[in-house]
């Protein structure tokens, strides 16, 4: 694509043209002129905080995103939402269904909802996700919400994009234990027991509190546990306040910058990883031609040898 034309699209996005914002997101996702687009976007963005919402399938993440959006809109803030769903590992296709629960803002032009598939490739999700959030910020959406299903490693990575991580669980399920297994307990800044209209919510809250005690959590920020019900519309204000409180905490203690530094470290590593992988592919091809004898070669030795030849022999 012509750089001049591309720069016009970028300028239009900054002027809050929704079509342009949507196009930039697609190009970045498809790795078309990604570095160029992001150079312009990152110059203008990075000030707004990201609220990540994760939890098991069906916990009510999208419903809560919609409920929170309603509160932000009542305060006249513009909201950018990214909802990530898994892509099929077989076909690469995906059904992205989070919009179903976000209908209330379906024609509100101050709310931008973008659905993304994980598209499988290593690290790729994470990188596009943070880029997409920044494109939304550039497009004038100051409240950034990120929803993803909390079941695996890539979702944990996605959550590292967030300045505040909200983990949504349900009463009367094995959610607590599942959450520990999936490792999402550790990333939580705020816990939500959603569907508090169903029995067992208080108990679930107590279980989480107990777990936090057991962990001997010494961090100055102890994750609060909020009960919500989207059905009876209770607790969402309280969730809103806890998110605000956490964001203040992050800013005042400099934690936000710490987290961002760590994120930058990881992002740079991922770009490195791509470059390294490319180098490795050629090294491997060369080695394979001449030396690799299946069933005999020891991968430990082979790795060491190839590494030294490539990077030390110099």
């Amino acid at each position, binding site marked *: *694509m012509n750089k001049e034309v591309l720069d016009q699209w970028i300028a239009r996005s900054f002027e809050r043209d929704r079509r342009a914002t949507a196009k930039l997101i697609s190009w970045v*996702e*498809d790795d078309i002129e990604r570095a160029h687009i992001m150079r312009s976007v990152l110059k203008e963005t990075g000030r707004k905080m990201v609220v990540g919402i994760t939890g098991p399938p069906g916990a009510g993440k999208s419903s809560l995103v919609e409920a929170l959006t309603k509160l932000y809109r009542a305060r006249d803030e513009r909201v950018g939402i990214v909802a990530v769903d898994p892509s099929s590992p077989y076909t690469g*296709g995906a059904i*992205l269904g989070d*919009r*179903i629960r976000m*209908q209330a803002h*379906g*024609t509100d032009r101050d709310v931008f909802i973008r659905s993304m598939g994980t598209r499988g490739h290593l690290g790729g999700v994470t990188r596009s996700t943070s880029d997409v959030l920044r494109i939304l910020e550039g497009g004038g959406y100051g409240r950034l919400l990120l929803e993803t299903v909390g079941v695996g490693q890539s979702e944990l990575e996605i959550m590292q994009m967030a300045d505040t991580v909200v983990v949504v669980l349900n009463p009367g399920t094995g959610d607590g234990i599942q959450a520990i297994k999936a490792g999402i307990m550790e990333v939580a800044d705020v816990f939500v027991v959603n569907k508090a209209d169903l029995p067992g919510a208080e108990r679930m809250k107590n279980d989480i509190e107990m777990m936090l005690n057991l962990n001997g959590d010494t961090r100055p920020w102890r994750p609060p546990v909020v009960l919500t019900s989207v059905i009876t519309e209770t607790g969402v204000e309280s969730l809103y306040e806890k998110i605000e409180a956490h964001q203040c905490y992050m800013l005042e203690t400099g934690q936000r910058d710490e987290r961002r530094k760590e994120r930058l470290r990881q992002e740079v590593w991922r770009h490195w990883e791509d470059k390294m992988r490319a180098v490795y592919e050629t090294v491997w091809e060369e080695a394979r031609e001449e030396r690799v004898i299946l069933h005999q070669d020891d991968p430990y030795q082979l790795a060491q040898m190839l590494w030294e030849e490539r990077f030390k022999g110099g």
Partner: protein
Amino acid sequence: MNKTRIRVLVGKPGLDGHDRGAKVIARMLRDAGMEVIYSGLHQTPEQIVEAAIQEDVDLIGVSVLSGAHMTIFPRIKELLKEQNAEDILLMGGGTIPEEDIVSLIEAGHAEALFTPGATSTEIVSWIKSKLESIKEDVV
């Protein structure tokens, strides 16, 4: 060469509760490797078009089994035009009589319409060949 993934919005306009077809189509397109944004039941044409813009889809697919096709398709096309988003294609399906299909297509109110019994091969190959023919000259 960058392979861009096909993105499709599948929605059900109006009060029509027949969502089986829409769900079948969503799964069919997912299995063909596309990203399907499923927006569910009871959508207004305005919601459908706004979602299509934000999601930057290549095409919109609506399923109509309520008999309201003669108003829904022209309305969506009109809204796309208002938003300068005419490059987003519109296809659909459901219980639509043959003569209505002819007149909707001729008037440019939809690019393709499919009726009960339409197969995955028919639908997927139509989408792929249609998009291949136009994607090249998209900036």
